[in-house]
Structure formats: structure tokens, C-alpha cells
């Protein structure tokens, strides 16, 4: 790199800057590969089609919700309510099938809409009432959980039509589980939103410097609300996938899910200070967490040690990311 033209230098620099966005993904992907290779060697049952499908299916709920969470985190927000909202949506969606007799696709949409409404409340509380996202969604975590108990009387709702199982348990042409297809579709949509639409652009802008966004005439409230609606809708959709997996609406579903989801986004490089985050990174983060849980079972690791291991892996994945970013910064000087 001793003899470069001026243009060459700036081009290189630009590339490197954008690489730094990719680095988090690389770090997370690296961790993913390490865990993957390790498990392939350590457990004979890991590298079977069945098991990999299992992992894919098990990731679906986390991944779908985490993509919404990524959008929220990019705006420097957070959505703690996704677990409760997923439960509420899952149960209400199933009730729409069972009690109202709605056709399955409509009921899935209905459940998703329930999530969107919760998201709307979050969004309005944040953008209009001016509540801190942490507080607004913490309240929703409590409210939605209470509501799901009230509507279901804390009883799981059964009696879904068989076709509902397809969403969470079905297999697509080529033997790919439908949940995996769902992940892909949502991920591509998320990618397009983040990189090609105003909504995505404004999400980054709001998270990066909300004052600048305001001064540029961006209707902050409207877009911020939209972001939480999307997160709520995806939580609702995730809740429907979870319901389909167990062919019932479970009012206790999703306790603590928000932490997994947030961890997935952050491992994938989203910054809680806003302005940073990608769909690909989040996906990798979600798979990493699922893989660790899967591997721990395959290797018969005691559940208590699993908790310790998951904590430590989260630390290491993010630490590695930091290290790589720092080295990159140093290298570009």
C-alpha cells in the first residue's frame, strides 16, 4: 500500500470504513463457525439433516423477532415487550381460529395485527407521550402478559386446524422447513427496508443523531411509531410461529425471550446507542444462540453450566467484535 493514488487511498478508506460495519458480522459469523466446527467434531448427531433442520426451526421465532428488534435498536430504542407481545398475539391468533373460526391465514394475520397494535401503543407512548423506550416497553411487557392471562384465563388454547401446523412444522419443496423459509423471507424484507427505504434510512438517522434528524425535517414521531409497529408485528408473527410449533396458544410463552432477541441483535453488531445494526448480523447472532443451546443438549451439558456457557459466549463474541474493530481502526491509519 506504499504507492497509491489519492483516489485509491480514499476508495480504500471508504471500503475499510464500510468493512467496519461488516466486521461485527464477521466476528459473529466467526464465532458461529467455531461453534459449528466444534459441534461437528464433538457430537456425531450434530451434522445430521434432522438436527440442522431442528436448529433452523428453533431459531425461527428468535430470528424473526430479532429482525424487528434490530430496527428498533438502530433508532437507539429498545423493545422489552416482544416476549409478552408474542404470547398475546400467539394466543389471540389461535383463539381467532378456534373460537371465531377464522381461516388459518387470516388468523395468522390477525395475530400479527395484535402484535402491531401493541407496537403502536409502544410507539405512541414513545414518540407522542415522550416516554423512554425502555420504560414504555417495560410497561407493555407487564400489560401484554396480564392481557394474555386475562383473555385465555391462563389456559393454553387448543383445537387449531391441522393446516396451522404448516407454519411452524411444515416442509417446503426441497425439504427445507417452512420456518427456515420464513426466516429468509423476513430477513430479505428487513434488508430491503433497512438499506433501500426511507424508513430504514430515517431509522439510522434518528438513532445516529435525533437532533440532526429533526433539523432535517424528518417527521420523527411518525417514523419512530412505525418502527415500533413493525417490531410489534414481527413479535406477533413470531408468536404465531411459536403457536404453530406447538399447535396451540400458550399464555406462558416468551418469558425472557426479549433478552435472547436483544442478545442476537447486539452480537450481530447492533449498537444500543443507535445508528448501527444489520439484518445479516442479527441473523448470525440468532443462529449462534440457537446453536449453543442445541450443542449443549447434544453434548449433555448440564443446564446450569449451559447458562454459564451462554453468558460467556455472549461476552466472547462481542469482545472479539470489539477487538476486530479496534484492530481495523488501527490498521487504517
Amino acid at each position, binding site marked *: 500500500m506504499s504507492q497509491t493514488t489519492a483516489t485509491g487511498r480514499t476508495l480504500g478508506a471508504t471500503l475499510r470504513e464500510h468493512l467496519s460495519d461488516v466486521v461485527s458480522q464477521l466476528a459473529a459469523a466467526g464465532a458461529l463457525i467455531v461453534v459449528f466446527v466444534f459441534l461437528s467434531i464433538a457430537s456425531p448427531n450434530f451434522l445430521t439433516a434432522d438436527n440442522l433442520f431442528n436448529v433452523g426451526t428453533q431459531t425461527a421465532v428468535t430470528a424473526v423477532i430479532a429482525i424487528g428488534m434490530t430496527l428498533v435498536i438502530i433508532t437507539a430504542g429498545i423493545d422489552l415487550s416482544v416476549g409478552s407481545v408474542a404470547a398475546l398475539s400467539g394466543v389471540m391468533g389461535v383463539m381467532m381460529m378456534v373460537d371465531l373460526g377464522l381461516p388459518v391465514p387470516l388468523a395468522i394475520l390477525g395475530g400479527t395485527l395484535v402484535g402491531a397494535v401493541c407496537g403502536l401503543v409502544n410507539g405512541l407512548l414513545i414518540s407522542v407521550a415522550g416516554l423512554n423506550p425502555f420504560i414504555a416497553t417495560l410497561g407493555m411487557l407487564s400489560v401484554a402478559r396480564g392481557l394474555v392471562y386475562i383473555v385465555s384465563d391462563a389456559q393454553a388454547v387448543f383445537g387449531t386446524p391441522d393446516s396451522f401446523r404448516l407454519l411452524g412444522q411444515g416442509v417446503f419443496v426441497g425439504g427445507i422447513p417452512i420456518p427456515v423459509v420464513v426466516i429468509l423471507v423476513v430477513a430479505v424484507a428487513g434488508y430491503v427496508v433497512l438499506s433501500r427505504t426511507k424508513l430504514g*434510512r430515517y431509522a*439510522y438517522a434518528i438513532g*445516529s443523531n435525533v437532533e440532526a434528524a429533526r433539523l432535517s*425535517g424528518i417527521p420523527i414521531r411518525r417514523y419512530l411509531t412505525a418502527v415500533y409497529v413493525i417490531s410489534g408485528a414481527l413479535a406477533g408473527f413470531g408468536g404465531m410461529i411459536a403457536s404453530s410449533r406447538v399447535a396451540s396458544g400458550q399464555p406462558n410463552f416468551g418469558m425472557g425471550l426479549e433478552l435472547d432477541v436483544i442478545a442476537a441483535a447486539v452480537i450481530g453488531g447492533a449498537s444500543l446507542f443507535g*445508528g448501527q445494526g444489520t439484518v445479516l448480523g442479527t441473523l448470525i447472532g440468532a443462529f449462534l444462540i440457537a446453536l449453543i443451546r442445541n450443542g449443549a443438549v447434544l453434548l449433555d451439558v448440564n443446564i446450569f453450566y449451559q447458562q454459564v456457557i451462554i453468558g460467556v459466549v455472549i461476552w466472547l463474541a462481542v469482545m472479539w467484535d470489539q477487538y476486530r474493530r479496534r484492530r481495523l481502526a488501527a490498521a487504517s491509519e
Partner: protein
Amino acid sequence: MEPVVRLRGICKEFPGVMAVDGVDLDILPGEVHVVAGENGAGKSTLMKLLSQVERPTAGEIYISGERVEFHGPGHAQRLGVAMVYQEFALAPHLSVAENLFLGREPGRGGFVDRRAEKEEARGLLERVGLEVDPDRLVSTLTVAEQQRVEIAKALAIDAKVVIMDEPTATLAEKEIEELFGVIRDLTSQGRAVLYISHRLDEIFRIADRVTVMRDGKVVATLPVEELDEAKLVRLMVGREIGNLYPRPETQIGDVLLRVRGLSRGERLRDCSFEVRAGEILGFAGLVGAGRTELARAVFGADPVDAGEIELEGRRLRIRKPQDAIEAGIGYLTEDRKGEGLALQLGIDQNITLASLPARFGFIGLGRERSIAERRREQLNIRTPSVRRKVQVLSGGNQQKVVVARWLETRARVLFFDEPARGIDVGAKAEMFALIGELAREGRGIVLISSYLPELINMCDRILVMRDGSVAGVLEREEFSEERIIALATGVKETV
């Protein structure tokens, strides 16, 4: 001629401050209208009222003869009001192109046409003479580069009036000339430019008319021909100011600080210099020459690859700012909001931040209070109470708070990075008097400035940087703008 902007009886009150108090103002198409006044006179606030960032408490605003209601900054932009803010309004995680079109992205149906965006961005950047890739993240630009992105952003709007709030505060002569080119370009198209600056010479170079504000009120609006420097200053501060650059006669003593072979990647290459007791050493150079980098490296704010630092003959090992401060080196940053002030803390707390009077971990609150009071007196920080949050001070007063902090550390060597940025004439004179005073006390001063008159008037020697290395050091008798620019640009003197 029909004014593009007409303000009638505009008022804005903040808690306890009448920031703008019954202002009437007409802006004509094609004119450069300068608004001048002391720190806190209400200039920025007035501009924010026009660009609908703030809602006026009273009064009427007409644009092209139409009364406008308050609907927020997006509305003002659509009406043709563009603004370059005093404090940057850029999103650091977005690219240059993305920032330029923020809120007005090309494309349809909610989608952004990124190719068109980049193309148009190139054109805009060219107009302000900024050679950076539109894909670069704003966070990686220098302050000066960011300033020009701000200007380009204002140009992106098809504006009837462009407001510029101290756009040159971080620019050096060459860039300023380019900016003036842009301004002349705008006015020739019949657009009005509202321009705020504390640099008197600029005012006379660019202004058609000048409005002077004091304490939120308009003191006078005059064509520039009816003004001279003395009169302008008198209008602004309401009194006579003697020498703008009161350089004291000082006894220059032994070498205090000696820096040898400081290097940091490509940004600093083998830089050496020394500062003597009682001496004011200037750092000159074009924007991006590495002056800030050099000061930060000495101060331990950034890691270095190689180099030695000696203070009063003692070899120092500086790895972090704390080491430098303990050894007796202070550094006043150029970006006071980003790196200088803790905005939510009080004025007193900011002043004592680097030298907290404490024993066994407990703060002497009484002492802190009296320190702050003393500095307020000395530096004439305009505030009803030192316990107010720094956030609510005007830019210039904020700057004084940072200065006060470093005075409190009793540093032997002080680096002032663009200390006059955003400070009004009166305050500037006070501050340079203060810098002179510090030198007379036997401290070593490094004065980094992009404004050559400041350096030429204040300094004993001037070190000129170019491209991360020391291009030369001029003694007082060799001082001249031409010579400095020649060294800074590497072009042979044409005289």
C-alpha cells in the same frame, strides 16, 4: 424590492432569558445580510426561529410576503429556508451522501434511489470544494470537513434564503475563500444569505448589510458602507474596545516542553518542537494538516507510535490525558460540545472537572463554588448563577467555561485548539488578554488557530504544519500571511 423574509415583533423567551426580544428584520433577495453581536445576543436563536426549529413566543414571520405558521423545520425547508447550524446537525453513522439528502431523499414510494443520491451528492460536494467520497461515513470526517458537508447540505435545498451560523469557525483561509465563492454564487442567483460571524474582517469582506444585536434586541441595521470596525464593535458591545490582540511583553525563559520525533501512522510524521516559558507558540496550517492530531498526541489523548516528550527537562511517559494533566499539560479541545463539556452538569462542575478540590474522595463544595465564582468574574461568563447547567449557555460562554477549567489545573503548558471559535469580539479580546496573562505568568502556550491574524498578533513563534509534519517554524520578525500560507501549502513564495 419585496423582502424574502420579513420578521415583525419576533420574541423568544427561554427560562429566565429573553433570547430574542421584539425583533423586526427584512431580508432582501440577493443580499448578504450579516447578523453580528456578542455571545448570547440572540443571533442563533433568531435564526432558529426563522428555520422553525424553535417556536416564537410572539411575533410574525413572512416569507415572500406570506405569513407562515409554525410547522417545524421540514416546513421551513419547503418554504425555501436552508440553514447551516452552529453546532453540527449531521448523523455520524450515515454517509456523506445520505446526510446531504436527509429528509429529502430522491426516490418514490418510500424507496430511496441511492444512485441518484450519490450522483447529486458529488455535484454538491464539488460546489463546496470538498473532495471526499460521498460514501464515507460522516463520523470519519474532520470537523472542518463536516462543516463543509453542512454547507453542501444547505445548498441541496432550492433555497430562497440560506442561513449560515458561524460557518467559518473551523475553516482556514483557503476554505473561507471557497465558501465566499459559494456565497457570491448564491446571491448572484437572487438568493439571500443570512450570515453570522464573529470575525470582523469577514463581515467587511462579504456583507451587504449588517444587523447588530445586543441582549436580544436589534441595535441597528446598516449598509456595510456606513460601518467601520470601531463603529461595529461599539454597536456590538456598547463600549470601546482597545486592542483586540493585547499581547503582553513577556520574558521568554527556558524550554518548558520539548517534543521530539512524535509519529502516529500517516497522520503525524516525526514532529518535533519546543515551547519556552512565557512563550506563545502558534500552530498554523491548512485544515487537516495535523495540528489537532499533534496536540492530542502530546496530551495523550491518542496513542503514538514513536516520540519523546520532555517537560522541564524531565522525560514524561504519557499514555493517557491524566498523565499529561498530572505532569502539567493542558489541552483545550476544538469541539467543545463533543469533547469539552458535560452539558448536563453545572457551570461550576464543569470548571472543576479536571481539578476537583477534594480530600479523601470528598469534594469541597464550598471551595468549588468559590472557584467557579472567581472564574466567572475573571472571564466574564454571562450567567445568573454558576450552578446553571452549561447546556443553556450561549456558545461563547460555553467556551469560556472550558477555558476556566484549564486555568484551574495550573498547567505549565497549555494547548488552546481554536480557542476563539464562536467567541465574540469582546470576549475574544478578553480571552487573548488572558492567554497573554498566562504567558506572562511563565507558562508555555500553544495556540492553534486557522485565523492567521490571531496567530500573527499573539505569537512569539509560529510552527506551520503540512500533511502531518512540521513544514517550518517562523520567528516573530519573519511573520507574514504569505509566508505562512506558502509553508502550509508547500507552494514557493511568489514575492
